[in-house]
């Protein structure tokens, strides 16, 4: 067994100092729901575990007039049971309900799901359509608010540097926006998505005035379907328009074939799930799976 080390700072300031001063490769440990399987499968390459799970200042959901701010250590279960999220960010609420299983949801944190930068990360797709910002802090660069679209780089890679700590993720309260998240997995629990989709839209009468579409597991990172978004903006939702959008979204993704599904199947699903997610958002809070 390799040599591992453990350190448990008691404040964000102390954590940033450790990240800044240490020469060792540090892995930030919170819920550990990725770290423990990585250790078991010999995928962990870091030698120090910096346990931030005791930093209460990073836990919890704050909501003021304009912004909802979720601390990095907030668990999927806490988000799932938050009224603020259920009412103000339906898609995120739905994503947390389909995240892993209830026991894992008691440990897995939103900061960890972001840092892990999986193309299939369940919480990232809804945060994408909510136009979320990731708050990242380091001793050298202070506090930065990074748009989620700029945060993710490649599978398992984000813009996080070795000194950086995710402290929160936040998004604007946007009244009138209806959202929906759908995960297509091979099981109901503990599934890694074959494909997932989030839609947030605003209607004026029947006309779409604003729409954001994000998909997971169809590209190296979760992506926005910008062409489909601009096609739908300004149009009335009708069967013909939806049909056109379903074709369009298929051309915007670059899925691969892997153990869970073929490229062709994922492409097919992207269209179907777009239709379901738009319908789901229109029903508001409607959970279509």
């Amino acid at each position, binding site marked *: 067994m390799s040599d*591992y080390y453990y*350190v448990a700072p008691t404040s964000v300031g*102390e954590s940033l100092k450790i990240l800044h001063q240490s020469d060792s490769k540090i892995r930030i440990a919170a*819920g550990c*729901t990725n770290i423990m399987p990585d250790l078991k499968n010999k995928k962990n390459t870091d030698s120090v575990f910096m346990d931030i799970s005791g930093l209460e200042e990073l836990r919890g959901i704050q909501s003021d007039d304009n912004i909802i701010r979720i601390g990095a250590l907030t668990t999927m*279960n806490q988000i799932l049971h938050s009224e603020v999220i259920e009412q103000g960010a339906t898609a995120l609420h739905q994503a947390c309900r389909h995240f892993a*299983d209830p026991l894992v949801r008691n440990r897995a944190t939103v900061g960890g799901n972001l840092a892990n930068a999986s193309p299939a990360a369940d919480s990232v797709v809804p945060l994408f359509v909510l136009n979320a910002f990731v708050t990242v802090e380091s001793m050298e660069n202070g506090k930065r608010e990074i748009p989620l679209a700029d945060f993710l780089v490649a599978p398992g890679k984000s813009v996080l540097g070795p000194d950086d700590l995710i402290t929160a993720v936040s998004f604007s309260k946007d009244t009138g926006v209806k959202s929906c998240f759908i995960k297509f997995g091979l099981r109901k629990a503990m599934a890694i998505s074959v494909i997932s989709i989030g839609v947030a839209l605003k209607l004026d009468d029947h006309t779409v005035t604003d729409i954001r579409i994000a998909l997971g597991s169809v590209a190296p990172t979760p992506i926005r379907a910008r062409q489909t978004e601009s096609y739908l903006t300004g149009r009335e939702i009708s069967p013909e328009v939806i049909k056109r959008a379903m074709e369009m979204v298929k051309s915007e993704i670059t899925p691969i074939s892997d153990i869970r599904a073929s490229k062709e199947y994922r492409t097919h699903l992207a269209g179907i799930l777009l239709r379901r997610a738009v319908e789901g958002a229109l029903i508001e809070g409607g959970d279509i799976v």
Partner: protein
Amino acid sequence: MNFEKDVAIKVNINGIEIRSTVAAAESLLEFLRKHSETVDVKCGCSQGDCGTCTVVFEGQTVKSCLVLAAQANTKEIWTLKGLEKDPLMQKLQESFVRHGAVQCGFCTPGMLVAARGFLENNPNPDRAGIRDALSGNLCRCTGYQKIVDAVWTVASEKASERV
């Protein structure tokens, strides 16, 4: 601040305080089985898939293989063994036996701890809710029907007691 290879922890397991030293990368599951003799906590996959290592950690039902042992410092943990005298746990155990929900028995400790945690917070669940609550616990024998029946019966009895 020092990086520690061996971490001294003080942890309360089933009401008994234990002081020990754990390796930095050791899981709580390994610690429970090897160093605190709580072998009622089973080891199935040790990567969060099967749920047979389920324990109550700081009041939350979690998979102990997904927790670093060092993170248990100053924390309170309850395993099946420690919950044996709990009235709700006893009802669940009896119901599991009555419904044939224990076959090979390997998943049972985790199932019971997960079911108890769920019923404690959701005294009046529907069957779908029970299935969802146990979705992190795998059983390869029963097909789940008997387990859901067992938990459902206890939930219904609890509901009728309140009337």
